[in-house]
């Protein structure tokens, strides 16, 4: 058939996707087992995780510091487990959660280091020619956490 402007539909040609049944078999057999083997053998270097905490998402590794702009109801020196892990990755594999990963799969531990106030921030409102100016000094409570460890367990299925 000669290729004219109307000989084929205007939308782009979609390549044929692999059969879902076969793909699920391949995934379960090869990919999952390979990743499980790598995890149980310990063939990963430094792990990083994306954690949802204090209404923010953080990309964290072990031994790094996190500062939240609010109060945490835990004393200094308490060990805390961060649930709500969205993604865990190493050099060769990543585990993407939809949207969260299971609690029996990842374990992220952190310690509360200090609870302070922020530097005094100045809020100033000023209208010109109206003799209106207001100045407030705001100090927000802050908490600093140190991420101790990120561990993964070979419980993929």
């Amino acid at each position, binding site marked *: *058939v000669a290729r*004219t402007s*109307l*000989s*084929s*539909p205007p*939308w782009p040609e*979609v*390549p044929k*996707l692999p059969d879902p049944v076969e793909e699920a078999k391949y995934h379960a057999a090869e990919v999952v087992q390979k990743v499980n083997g790598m995890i149980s053998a310990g063939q990963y270097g430094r792990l*990083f995780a*994306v954690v949802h905490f204090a209404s923010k*998402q*953080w*990309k964290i590794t072990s031994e790094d510091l996190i500062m939240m702009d609010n109060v945490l109801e835990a004393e200094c020196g308490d060990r805390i487990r961060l649930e709500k892990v*969205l*993604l865990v*990755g190493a*050099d060769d594999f*990543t585990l*993407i*959660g*939809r*949207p969260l990963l299971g609690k029996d799969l990842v374990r992220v531990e952190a310690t509360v280091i200090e609870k302070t106030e922020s530097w005094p*921030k*100045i*809020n*100033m*409102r*000023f209208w010109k020619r109206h003799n209106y*100016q207001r*100045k407030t000094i705001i100090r927000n409570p802050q908490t600093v956490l140190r991420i101790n460890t990120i561990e993964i367990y070979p419980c993929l299925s």
Partner: protein
Amino acid sequence: MVLLSTARWLRSRLTDRFWRKQEVLKYARHFRGRKNRCYKLAVRSVRRAFVRSTKARREKKRFLRALWITRIEAASLEHGLKYPAFISNLVKSQVELNRKVLADLAIYEPKTFKSLAALAQRRRQEGFLAALGDGKEPEGIFSRIVHHY
């Protein structure tokens, strides 16, 4: 003696005028020109600086979000996807990563970003297939596509 009002030769005089002015001048020390030294000029400049910093704190959020979007767009174009396609397909695949984290992954974890782009591309094609359905035209419709038999 008890007096009803104080004597006129007892005045209360301001003694810490220097320190009151220093409280304002300390915020103006890094300014340019006479407004880092002279109080009358510094008061106006410091007031404008405070007002601008309060407004900027609200705009910083918009600015940073635009920056993340630019970076994610650049990274996804390297993998052959446009930004709206990337984000919409990630959301449809129930991956709830925000733009800040996606930009950080694009910078520091390129392999992870490539896998996310592949996930979005696969979901996009599955969406196209689902929209096309059987590939047959509905009955009773005269289509402009030419068929040569």
